[in-house]
């Protein structure tokens, strides 16, 4: 054993820290974050008087049920699309040399850093009636008159996948980067086809990244507000937009009930996923 290792075992009392240092933050978050959210959730069953009326209204009205179903469907499709598009990027970035991948990573990080509002606006510009996509389609003769792209489900999917894609790529990248390249080469050397290498070696090893990315994207998509509100049509009402509308109509207890359902869904997904497939390690690696 080395001398320095003996020295490393520092007695707790001389360490430059104390659990109490976390107290100011704990008090702050409890007062200004946890308490308001808890009080809001209580409102859903306590107004007017103790009642489950707000939830009954939610689950009995087909309009609201449809919003819930739509929200889940959008979140699921966005997650799958982000996985299919993000995996090749993460794989390529992880398998080329550092200098190149650091450079290309900027193409992932620049949109990641840009505010969601700006990115959504960019899609409004692209997909508008006079937008570039329409003009391009007109120029190549694919259409005769501008088509409605903005305020459709298509716009919601395209913009949401664009905004959430970095949340898929980053955890995938960090997991794939950690895979020993020799394993892939060994499989190829032993005669596996590229698809075989992918299915039998790469995918199982990348699974923690896949589930961490899917978890992040799905939960963020469930609560998405800005993008569906701006580029979606009247038929693409997602739950966060419905909550905002109900707040503006002063249906606060009902808005609270919707928020409780959204939070429960997010927690359920998180709890279900977090236990499996090494999500914790993958998320830990990303946040570090």
């Amino acid at each position: 054993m080395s001398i320095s290792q003996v020295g490393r075992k520092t007695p707790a009392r001389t360490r430059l820290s104390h659990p109490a240092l976390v107290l100011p933050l704990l008090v702050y978050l409890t007062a200004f974050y946890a308490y308001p959210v808890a009080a809001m959730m209580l409102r859903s069953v306590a107004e007017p008087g103790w009642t489950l009326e707000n939830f009954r209204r939610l689950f009995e009205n087909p309009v609201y049920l449809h919003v819930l179903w739509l929200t889940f469907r959008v979140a699921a499709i966005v997650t799958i699309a982000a996985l299919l598009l993000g995996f090749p990027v993460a794989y390529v970035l992880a398998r080329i040399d550092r200098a190149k991948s650091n450079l290309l990573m900027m193409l992932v990080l620049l949109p990641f850093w840009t505010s969601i509002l700006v990115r959504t606006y960019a899609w409004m510009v692209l997909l508008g009636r006079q937008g570039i996509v329409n003009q391009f389609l007109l120029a190549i003769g694919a259409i005769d008159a501008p088509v409605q792209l903005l305020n459709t489900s298509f716009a919601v999917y395209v913009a949401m996948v664009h905004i959430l894609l970095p949340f898929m790529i980053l955890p995938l990248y960090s997991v794939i980067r950690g895979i020993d390249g020799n394993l892939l080469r060994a499989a190829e050397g032993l005669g596996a086809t590229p698809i075989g290498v992918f299915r039998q070696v790469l995918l199982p090893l990348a699974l923690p990244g896949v589930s961490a990315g899917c978890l992040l994207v799905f939960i963020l998509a469930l609560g998405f507000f800005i993008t569906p509100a701006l580029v979606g049509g009247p038929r693409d009402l997602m739950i966060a937009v419905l909550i905002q509308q109900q707040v503006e109509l002063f249906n606060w207890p009902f808005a609270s009930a919707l928020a409780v359902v959204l939070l429960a869904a997010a927690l359920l997904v998180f709890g279900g996923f977090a236990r499996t497939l090494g999500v914790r390690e993958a998320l830990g690696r990303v946040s570090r």
Partner: protein
Amino acid sequence: MSRDRARGTIRRARPRSGPGLGVSSIAALVLLYLVFPILVVIPLSFSAGTYLSFPPPGFSLRWYENFLGRSDWLGAASLSLWIGAAVMVLATALGAPAALALVRTDFRGKDLLIGFIISPLIAPVIIVAIGIYFFYARLGLVGNPFALVIAHTCLAVPFVVINVSATLQGFDERLEQAAMNLGATPWRTFWQVTFPIIRPGVLAGALFAFISSFDELVVALFVSGTSAVTLPRKMWESIRFEIDPTIAAVSTILIVLTGVLFLGAELLRRRSERLRAAVVLPDLPAKDARRGV
């Protein structure tokens, strides 16, 4: 001969280095999809036309003049800067000591506490926003800029805790021990030994906190009322009611500003990794120690 054939087989089976052409081109297309929208907004902001037509009919700075010449836009921008700066200070003051406690000490329920502190990052913002809105509505704080600072700090604090924790992990505590053995008080040790080493992480966390507040829309949408209109809130209204290229100009400014700030934070983070690796007392292996004797 058989050996030659074997070698030949091996050579033929030797895999390509790096990803194949097919997957690379898919990745290139996806990367294009990621950056293209952002690259389109920038030229539009210099358009001479009144509408968002592409390609822009001519070059002009009129939309930047429009932004800089209108008091509602400038007022919103300066309010956002002030709120962001206040959030940065408050979130750092609360988050950095918390990170010190979370990384270095052990207590019951620590994992739960970490989950709670990080949760504002993952919880749907709309839920946090309406919770805070109902709370402020009862206290009559809607439209108060200080109320926005308090709310934004809750959302910004995880960035500080994550960044500072990352710098503290792998910090060689024997440096502090040495300082204290030499008679420095814990307070002095912190400021002269600990802080200089973790400073890049603290700064990176502070920058993230600033940007998270500067960009924040959903909470501001509810809490800013009519008297505390932040830049994202002003943009939101403008996008919904008057689509002219002024928004493109504001967006370009934001893209450049956040790009520069994040790049700064990223460089700070790398610097802190290097610094941490450099300022570590060498581990003397046992045989070297013996040789010394």
